[in-house]
């Protein structure tokens, strides 16, 4: 087993040396975007300094190096999520959101018929909601929502009823608001029993726990590099090769074609069919470095660390503030990850975050791109703290200190 020490990760993360308002930064916003460690930043600089060139079709040395680096990132990601057929199943997008648009506008648009149902949940991110509403403008599909119970977990009591007419189940692996972890294996089984496919929003999962698409038995797996210590500008869509090969093109342009004439075009085969234009080349180099770095930490270790921090924070918030600060999410760490949404009585999330900023504490206020979920719980905003592999118990100390001040100010 790899040894894992969050203090070493911290030492690798340049941003954590910043001083904010006279205090060392306390970064608790990894659910929005994670902080890349030095090797990831350097991999991208090195790309531009040493090997940058456009990929494919090049014969000269740096073009080869760039191509190999780009294709190597596909292999690295395939390995990381255990894609059975390797890089041939990995499509690079610009972010997780584009992944869902690709799913909706390519696979779903060509496979769903009027009356078919896409089953999402009430706790989805807008990325896994809006593309389905957009699809509804051209095909009369139904977008159905699995309800979230008062225990902040998916309510599967009526799942057989809910599954009627469903062709695709598209759910998050972990809510970016509640922290709730969804029972993916169970949902995959249910979906397949009903001859439906299952897509997973893995944006909050991949940087925080081991991911195995074969073990989960899912059909699509979508996430973003910037939430797994990687760069912005790069997302990933995995699907099984047999599905990928039947999907029609999405965006059109260079790189995704086999042939073009003045009368029409023939799309390319494989992942490049979905990668129109110059891809995120330097970003892919950064992603490879992030994968290597996370593998070095060991994802089991990262997951345990998240769980320990979460457990500690939940019980201390409860001890310290009781009913004054409500935790919007499950309290049992068996059913949740390291994303903690807080509702401070009588204090708006924006004000909480503003006070916390004075302590150098970075938490995110707002609806977290999950407005249907907010409405479900009659909230307009929460203040959300979330952990990364560089987080320490001392971050929670500062969070509590700052929260105390916020409560006092508005008390």
């Amino acid at each position, binding site marked *: 087993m790899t040894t894992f020490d969050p203090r070493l990760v911290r030492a690798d993360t340049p941003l954590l040396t910043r001083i904010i*308002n006279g205090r060392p930064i306390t970064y608790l916003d990894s659910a929005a975007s994670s902080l890349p460690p030095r090797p990831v930043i350097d991999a991208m600089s090195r790309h531009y300094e040493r090997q940058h060139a456009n990929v494919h079709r090049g014969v000269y040395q740096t073009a080869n190096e760039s191509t190999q680096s780009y294709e190597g990132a596909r292999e690295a990601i395939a390995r990381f999520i255990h894609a059975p057929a390797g890089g041939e199943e990995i499509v690079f997008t610009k972010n997780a959101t584009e992944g869902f648009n690709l799913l909706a506008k390519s696979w779903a648009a060509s496979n769903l018929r009027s009356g078919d149902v896409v089953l999402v949940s009430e706790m989805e991110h807008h990325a896994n909601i809006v593309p389905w509403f957009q699809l509804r403008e051209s095909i009369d599909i139904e977008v159905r929502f699995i309800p979230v119970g008062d225990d902040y977990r998916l309510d599967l009591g009526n799942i057989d009823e809910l599954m009627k007419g469903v062709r695709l189940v598209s759910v998050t692996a972990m809510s970016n608001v509640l922290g709730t972890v969804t029972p993916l294996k169970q949902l995959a089984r249910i979906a397949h029993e009903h001859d439906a496919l299952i897509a997973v929003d893995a944006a909050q999962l991949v940087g925080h726990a081991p991911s195995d698409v074969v073990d989960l038995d899912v059909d699509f797996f979508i996430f973003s590099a910037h939430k797994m210590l990687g760069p912005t500008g790069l997302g990933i869509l995995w699907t099984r090769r047999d599905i990928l090969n039947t999907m029609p093109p999405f965006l059109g342009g260079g790189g995704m074609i086999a042939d073009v004439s003045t009368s029409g075009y023939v799309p390319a085969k494989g992942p490049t069919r979905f990668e129109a234009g110059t891809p995120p080349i330097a970003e892919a180099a950064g992603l490879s470095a992030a994968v290597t770095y996370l593998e070095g930490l060991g994802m089991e270790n990262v997951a345990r660390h998240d769980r320990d921090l979460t457990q500690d924070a939940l019980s201390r918030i409860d001890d310290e503030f009781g009913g004054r600060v409500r935790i919007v999410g499950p309290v049992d760490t068996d059913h949740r990850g390291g994303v903690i949404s807080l509702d401070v009585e009588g204090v708006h999330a*924006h*004000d909480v975050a*503003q006070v916390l900023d004075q302590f150098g504490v970075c938490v995110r*206020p707002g*609806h977290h791109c999950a407005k249907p979920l907010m409405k479900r719980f009659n909230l*307009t905003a929460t203040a959300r703290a979330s952990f990364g592999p560089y987080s320490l118990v001392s971050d929670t100390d500062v969070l509590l200190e700052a929260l105390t001040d916020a409560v006092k*100010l508005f008390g």
Partner: protein
Amino acid sequence: MSNLEDLYREVILDHYRSPRNRGELETPPALRVEGFNPLCGDEVVVYLLVDNGVLTDIKMTGHGCSISQSSSSLMSAAVKGKSLEQVRGLITTFKTLMTVHESSIDSSEPPPLQDVRALGELAALQGVVKFPVRIKCATLAWNTLNQGLDELSAID
């Protein structure tokens, strides 16, 4: 924490805790206008009753942070009973205060004195300009009121 005290002055916290002119007015005769900040989800609904060129009554509902809520409460108290012309003047003064500051944050130039004086209690909001992201919280109610006045003059 001196910055923070600049932002959250007593007047502001007071208006946040006990908002003035909260409630609804019957429409018609009142006009109802909605304002919305999609980025943070703040909402404000303004009811305007105008009689003979005078804003005889104003009520407000909505939800949001202390800045947006206190700003709308402070605004309602400041504009109620004023002539529409005076109201427009106040809107301009307030928004200028917010913008002038926004562009002069670095130089820390103080706002023109006469403007601040004209605003009375409202001047408590001037600490907001040190926190540029919060400016849109402070101006939400004012933009909504302005929109209401525009609709009223369009009806004329």
